[in-house]
Every structure is written in C-alpha cells, then in structure tokens.
C-alpha cells in the first residue's frame, strides 16, 4: 500500500475489480452501462445528475470522471457549479431538517 488512500490512476483500474469476483463485476458494469444510456433522460442529463451525486458522496474518482464527462457533453462551468449547489443544498438541508428532531426532543424533555 502507498502512504495515501486515493490515487488518480486507480480510476483507470476500476475494471480490475473483476479479477476477484468476475460475475458480480460483469453484472455491475453491464447495469452501469445501461443506466447511463439515452432513455427517458438523456445521457447528457444523467451526466449532470452523476456530477451532483459524486459531490454529495464525495467520491474523488466520480468527481474526476463526471467533471470531464459533463463538460465534454457541453455543460458550462456555471451549469456544473449549480448542480454542485443542488447537491450542497440537499446535503445541507438534510442536516438542518434533523434540527426538527432536535427541537422535538428538547421540547419533550424541557419544562
């Protein structure tokens, strides 16, 4: 192991996960390929969703891949940043909406 957890070159080795479990890897990559095809949503729209999700799950490999993919598919920098803000708003909102739970509890136990 190297002395860090993430290496940009590992993204190119993603397919290598099949070395340890081919059947499941094949199923995953087949499913992955199908998900990103043009269908009710275009491949371009799916790329922007993937970019936002990549930021929400804070996956550096996914951010690398979908920053390139979304830009190559024609999204502007402003559009891509707005997608990241959507992810941020949902994540921030997810934290804040739990504030209601906190309030509920405090109201329950407080005088």
């Amino acid at each position, binding site marked *: 192991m190297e002395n860090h957890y993430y290496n940009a070159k590992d993204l190119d080795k993603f397919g290598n996960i099949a070395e340890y479990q081919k059947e499941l890897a094949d199923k995953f990559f087949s499913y992955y390929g199908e998900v990103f095809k*043009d269908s009710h949503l*275009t491949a*371009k729209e799916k790329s922007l969703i993937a970019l936002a999700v990549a930021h929400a799950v804070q996956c550096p490999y996914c951010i690398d891949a979908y920053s390139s993919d979304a*830009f*190559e598919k*024609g999204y*502007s920098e402003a559009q891509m940043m707005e997608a990241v803000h959507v992810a941020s708003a949902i994540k921030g909102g997810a934290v804040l909406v739990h504030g209601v739970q906190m309030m509920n509890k405090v109201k329950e136990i407080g005088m």
Partner: protein
Amino acid sequence: MIKSLKVLQHPLADSENQLEVLENSLGSIHPTFNEKLVLSGMYPLRASGIDIMQLNLGKMCNQTCKHCHVDAGPDRKEMMSRSTMQFCLDVLKNSEIDVVDLTGGAPELNPDFRWLVEQIKKLGKHVIVRCNLTIILANKRFYDLPDFFKQHQVEVVSSLPSFTQDRTDRQRGDGVFEDSIKALQMLNRVGYGKEGSGLMLNLVYNPAGAFLPPSQTALEKEYKMELASRYDIVFNQLFAITNMPISRYLDYLLSSGNYSRYMDKLISAFNPASVQNLMCRNTLSVGWDGYLYDCDFNQMLDLKLSTSGNQHISDFDFVILKNRNIVIKQHCFGCTAGEGSSCGGSLSV
C-alpha cells in the same frame, strides 16, 4: 487579433518540430500507429481510390482559431494561384473524381475562389466549401456569398463548436458566435438547410478543450433543437470532428499540460473498425502550392506522398495515385479514436 505561430516564429510553426514532439516525446511505452495497424491486420494502409479532391486555397483567414491545424490567420499570405487551380481543373476534367472539397484558411479569401467554383461546376462536379460563416459578414463584398453558393448548388460545411456563445468564442475568437448565427440565418433565408431545397448546410462540432467529441447522433439532435428554439436556425447534418494534435492545437495541448493525457486518450480509444473508412483512403489533398498529400493533416505536417514521383498536381497520375500507400504517423490516432473522425464527421462504425 491572435498572431499565427509562423509570424510569431514559434518552434511549432516548423512541421519537423511538430513531428519530433509527436513521434518522440511520449517514450516507447506507447504503441505507434504503425504497430496498431499491423496488429489489426491493416498494414500497410492503402488508398481505395480517389473520390474526393480536397483543395487548400490558402492559409489566409479572417479568424485565428485556437485549435487550427493549418495555423491560418489574417497574417498568412500563402494563396493558391490560378495556374495551380488550372492544373487541378485539368485533372478533374479527365478523371472520375466527383467531389471537390474547398478549404483553407477561408477559401473565399482567395481572389479566384468564385472563378474556380464556376469552372468546377462546368465540369459537373459536386463542390463542398468549408465556410467559416463569419467571412460572409467580414466585408460587404462577401454579403452575397449565400446567393453565390445557392446559384452553384454548393454544399456548405461550417464550424460551430457549440450552440452557446461562451464556448464558441473561447475557441474561435470574440464575436464569432454572434456573426456565425447571423450568417447561418442568411444561409437559411436563401434556402440552405431547409427540407426540399436541395441546398446542403452541414455544421461541424469540434471540442473546445482537450477531450474527444461526444456521440455525434446525440449532439446533432441537441444542436437541432437548441438552434431552432433559440435562433430559428435549421441545418442538415452535424459532423463531430476530433481535434488533431497539430500546429496551434498541439501548442495548446503542450502549453496547458494536456498533451500526454490527450494522446493517451486518442491511443486508448483506437477503433480498428474506423480504419476501413478513413478519409485518406479515398481523398487526395492538394496544397496551396500544388503539392499532393494523403490528407489535410499530412499537408500541414509537410508529409508528402509515399510515391517516388507524382508529388505535384502538374504530375498527376490517377492509376498510380489511386493505389498508393498512405503515409502514417502518430497524429493518425486522431482519426481512429472512438467513432472515428473525418472531414465528414464520425466514421459511423
């Protein structure tokens, strides 16, 4: 206005320096194009005939696009003479070549451009003009180009790297998008791109950055929808073309630190199925000075034909040239990546 590499006396203005970068800078771990063809059983690459003659009428252009493989611009003076054009016409008259593809620079800047189109049409050949659109608005003497094109049933092929201003202007220069839209509307007004008119208007997409084009089919659908809804513009087909690591685009790749990554992309996306349809196999490229090349890219790298003679249009021999071996180097990966790429877009494989 950006100056050409030649006027700047940039090292990459010299084709030998470009070839040195392309052939030797990545080290031996990368396969050569030659090796890829051998592995695919397609070496040596041979011409399948000559269906298209592509004429470079000169390197002068009213634009200085950042990705230009010709290093064209307002400061370039090279221009095809009428006597060289006459050699081309003599060849066309006595051959089965049906299509003449006029390119540059901006081919319309050649003072004999209209004369040449008229002469080619008299021979009954199909003419394609690679029009950069903004030339139509560059000077009032070009305002009637749409009518001239229509009169001679010229197929117009024009670059528009995006349906948005920002991305177009970043690649082609400030104000280019706005003028391109106006020019497209002028072409539409005389019937170009309209169903049933027979007047072909095709657009060219090429990436504004260090990446490969997305799917041509999806892109064409999006372009048609966006240009119609935003500007009421129609066109026939979109050609998605890969940027060649030559001249100003090579300079961009090197200076932005993208060269190695871009070449990796081209090489790893090598598609053996695209080789059969490569444009060099059925096209002959004629330089502004009459010298012959397998394609416009080889022309810019000064890679002349593999034949021992017959290197100039004045020494044209159809039988010898239609079976020639194609000269290949590392830049050829630009035409075989992904869906493949040619002056007519994706090779649809």
